[in-house]
């Protein structure tokens, strides 16, 4: 009757990562201002739930590290410790270590982390430093007991272990007790992924045990439910332990069991009896007797913690291996909409059953019903799309840490400002945006912001500013990375581009065109290669990633003053406004946001130039004509340009004219990946299904243009 615990691992990892983020952000705020109780509690809870989860799923190394973190945080929470910035750095290292372990375990890698012991030792040193005297004065023995819990004694760092041992012995030498523990797990304990035996086994490390198993509850064979627990245990403990130590062992399943701990040797100091039992109305029985106020406080605060941690868990929606956390409001809205849809449906079917051609009135009602259905469908669609949208703070929140670390490493003073972190973005887009953004921010810090002396010379404030902002503009999202550093060096870029052979010296280029060169592969004007950036890889990858998301990136800069990178992205990857066009017998979708205009060509404006290149003179611009049927390899209906239709599109700042046979409707299309069952098709960003059930391909304009520039004619700026 084993339960596959692995099925819960994924959820644990996700929660773990979320909690680690909370920890990290919380720790970073400690550096700035006075410690806020709310934040301490918050991150303490985070550490606590990681530890608990890790112990349950037997990730002992994670549990060990977080246990130490929790221990320190507990001291902070009680006000017996102030964290120094040195301590914070160590604690952040520990958070990183846990993060690493989680990532490793997630990938199925079970090897232990190399520096785990170092991390633990560091944390123990913090825990045992400065505030030890205070803790002792506080006479709170439990806290000193804590470190031994859950830890494999062999893994202790010797020195630390000894001190701990001494403390512990000093504090509790006289306490040799006998305890009687009645442990009745809830019937559904296996479903929560806990195994009662594990807890009993843990007790064996603390004291000598005599265990009796009670099988009275076992039903007859035919009634047995293999996934329910019918057993309970009577345990007799002999050893130098206190009641709180026993309680700690069972702490993780406090909600899922009924526990009675009674001292057998009656000593005045510890004459207590307690029953902890929550949730499980059907098994509820006797309540408890005589609880010391201290214990009561401790318990209730713990259970509150558990409860509040649970409440924070928003419903998760599983999509294969991935999951999204969705605001409950969005789900509620969806529910409302489905409700409306059902009403519309019943109204329509009622109408359908009574529909007759003689009754003009009913036709009118049918039309209004259909209009309502259309409205419902649209709202439903929008609302479903909303579920995929997550606030960009998911990415932005990691930057305070990155900037903090990097600024320290580089010895620069930087103030990071974040705006518009509530801007929502499609989850897929978000995930692929992380690396480019991290790269850009690191660049801004490393290359952009100057050393303190240079800033003083330039009469700038000593502290540099990096600003991250995100906002909606029409149907697109703009993300800006701004720094008030040196800006891009126009001349350096030009000469570098010339030596690389990217441009000819005689060319007249606009600033925008020059700055665009930094995205070319192998381009870096950094004088020295640092560990942070300047290896010449990166910017081209940044641009590639953003292209693949259907967006683009531009740079604006003023030498000596600032540089601003602007990433422009479509709101979502799943739906787009498209213009349907006919080429030969095929229908294609051109994304509406790429279309500048559509026109019928005037014969006078068509010319052939620079070697069989067809261009169309639109006002003052010469627009290269792309014969789509050639590029897409389709039997053409019409090959003459005269009075044919041209769709002028813009891609990567250049305009192109696409020759099409017919313009059809404009409509929203749902994008479907071709890669799921086929392959990437150059020049095609995906497919969609039209009203008649056939498949139409969506043109990827940038991709198409690259297809041409690669094959037919040389890049506009390159010779």
């Amino acid at each position: 009757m084993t339960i596959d615990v692995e099925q819960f691992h994924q959820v644990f990892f996700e929660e773990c990562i979320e909690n680690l983020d909370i920890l990290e952000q919380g720790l970073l705020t400690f550096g700035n201002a006075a410690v806020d109780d709310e934040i301490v509690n918050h991150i303490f809870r985070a550490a606590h739930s990681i530890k608990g989860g890790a112990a349950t799923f037997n990730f002992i190394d994670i549990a060990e590290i977080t246990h130490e973190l929790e221990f320190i945080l507990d001291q902070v929470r009680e006000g017996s410790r102030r964290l120094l910035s040195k301590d914070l750095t160590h604690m952040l290292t520990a958070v990183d270590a846990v993060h690493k372990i989680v990532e490793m375990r997630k990938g199925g890698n079970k090897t232990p982390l190399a520096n785990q012991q170092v991390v633990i030792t560091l944390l123990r040193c913090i825990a045992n430093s400065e505030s030890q005297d205070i803790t002792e004065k506080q006479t709170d023995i439990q806290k000193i007991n804590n470190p031994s819990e859950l830890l494999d004694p062999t893994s202790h760092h010797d020195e630390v272990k000894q001190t701990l041992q001494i403390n512990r012995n000093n504090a509790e030498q006289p306490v040799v007790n006998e305890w009687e523990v009645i442990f009745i797990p809830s019937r559904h304990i296996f479903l929560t992924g806990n195994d009662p035996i594990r807890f009993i086994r843990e007790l064996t490390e603390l004291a000598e045990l005599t265990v009796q198993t009670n099988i009275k509850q076992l039903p007859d064979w035919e009634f047995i439910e293999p996934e329910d627990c019918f057993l309970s245990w009577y345990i007799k403990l002999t050893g130098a332990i206190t009641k709180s130590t026993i309680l700690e062992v069972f702490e993780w399943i406090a909600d899922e069991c009924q526990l009675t701990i009674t001292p057998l040797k009656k000593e005045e100091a510890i004459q207590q009896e307690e029953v902890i039992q929550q949730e499980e109305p059907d098994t509820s029985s006797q309540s408890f007797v005589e609880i010391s106020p201290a214990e009561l406080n401790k318990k209730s605060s713990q259970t509150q913690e558990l409860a509040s941690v649970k409440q924070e868990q928003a419903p998760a929606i599983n999509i294969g291996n991935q999951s999204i956390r969705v605001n409950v409001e969005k789900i509620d809205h969806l529910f409302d909409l489905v409700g409306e849809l059902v009403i519309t449906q019943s109204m329509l079917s009622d109408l359908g059953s009574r529909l007759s051609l003689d009754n003009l009135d009913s036709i009118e009602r049918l039309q209004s019903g259909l209009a309502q259905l259309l409205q419902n469908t649209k709202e439903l669609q929008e609302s479903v799309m909303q579920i995929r949208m997550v606030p960009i703070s998911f990415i932005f929140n990691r930057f305070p840490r990155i900037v903090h670390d990097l600024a320290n490493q580089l010895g620069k003073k930087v103030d990071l400002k974040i705006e518009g972190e509530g801007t929502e973005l499609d989850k897929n887009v978000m995930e692929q945006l992380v690396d480019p953004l991290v790269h850009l921010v690191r660049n801004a810090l490393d290359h952009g912001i100057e050393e303190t002396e240079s800033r003083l010379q330039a009469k700038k404030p000593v502290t540099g500013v990096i600003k991250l902002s995100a906002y909606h503009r029409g149907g697109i999202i703009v993300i800006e990375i701004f720094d008030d550093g040196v800006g891009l060096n126009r001349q350096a870029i030009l000469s570098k581009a010339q030596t690389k052979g990217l441009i000819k010296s005689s060319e007249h280029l606009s600033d925008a065109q020059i700055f665009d060169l930094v995205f070319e592969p192998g381009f870096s004007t950094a004088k020295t290669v640092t560990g942070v950036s300047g290896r010449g890889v990166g910017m081209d990858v940044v641009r590639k990633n953003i292209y693949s998301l259907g967006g683009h990136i531009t740079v604006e800069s003023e030498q000596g003053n600032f540089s601003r990178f602007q990433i422009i992205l479509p709101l979502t990857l799943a739906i787009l406004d498209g213009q349907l066009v006919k080429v030969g017998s095929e229908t294609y979708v051109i994304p509406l946001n790429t279309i500048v205009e559509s026109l019928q060509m005037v014969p006078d404006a068509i010319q052939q130039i620079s070697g069989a290149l067809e261009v169309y003179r639109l006002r003052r611009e010469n627009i290269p004509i792309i014969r789509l049927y050639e590029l897409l390899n389709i039997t053409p209906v019409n090959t003459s340009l005269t009075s044919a239709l041209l769709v002028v599109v813009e891609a990567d700042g250049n305009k192109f004219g696409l020759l099409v046979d017919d313009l059809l409707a404009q409509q929203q299309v749902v994008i479907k990946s071709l890669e799921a069952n086929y392959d990437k098709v150059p020049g095609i960003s995906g497919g969609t299904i039209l009203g008649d059930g056939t498949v139409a391909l969506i043109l990827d304009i940038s991709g198409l243009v690259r297809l041409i520039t690669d094959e037919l004619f040389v890049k506009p700026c390159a010779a």
Partner: protein
Amino acid sequence: MNEAVMEYDEPLTTDYHTQYLTFTLANELYAVDILRVKEIRGWKQPTLIPNAPDYIKGLINIRGMIIPVMDLRVHFNIGSKEYTPTTVVIVLSVKQGTTSRTMGIVVDTVADVVKVAESALASALPVKGTISAETISGMINIKKQTATVLAVEKLFELRKSNDRKLKSNE
């Protein structure tokens, strides 16, 4: 299409039996594991894929999923054929890890469903025809005919060898 299951005419053993769907290409008989077959549908002109290899006929929509259609005759180099009302598309699906891939293959006609003992599956011949050896997982004798059993997984891989040859005109 004959839905009846035809027993393989050799003495029955306790062997594990596999069912195959057989179909014809030109005058040759082929078979695929029936568990890979999702559905069989009639031929309908698919949406062309720009610059795809000639044996990829295009994309079709099956219940909201876009899948490629491959002409096995062209792919196996056994001539091409006008598509007629009996031309069918067999929709095959393969599970790779957590994702499953689906593809349609165009065949001349669907022949039958046969049940074959595993021991009766002979290995492919040592000499090679126009089909690459790794696409063939074996041979089975069905009455007087011999069917080539195709390795469906390999068919999916071949689809990837997109050589991007640009044809001037269809």
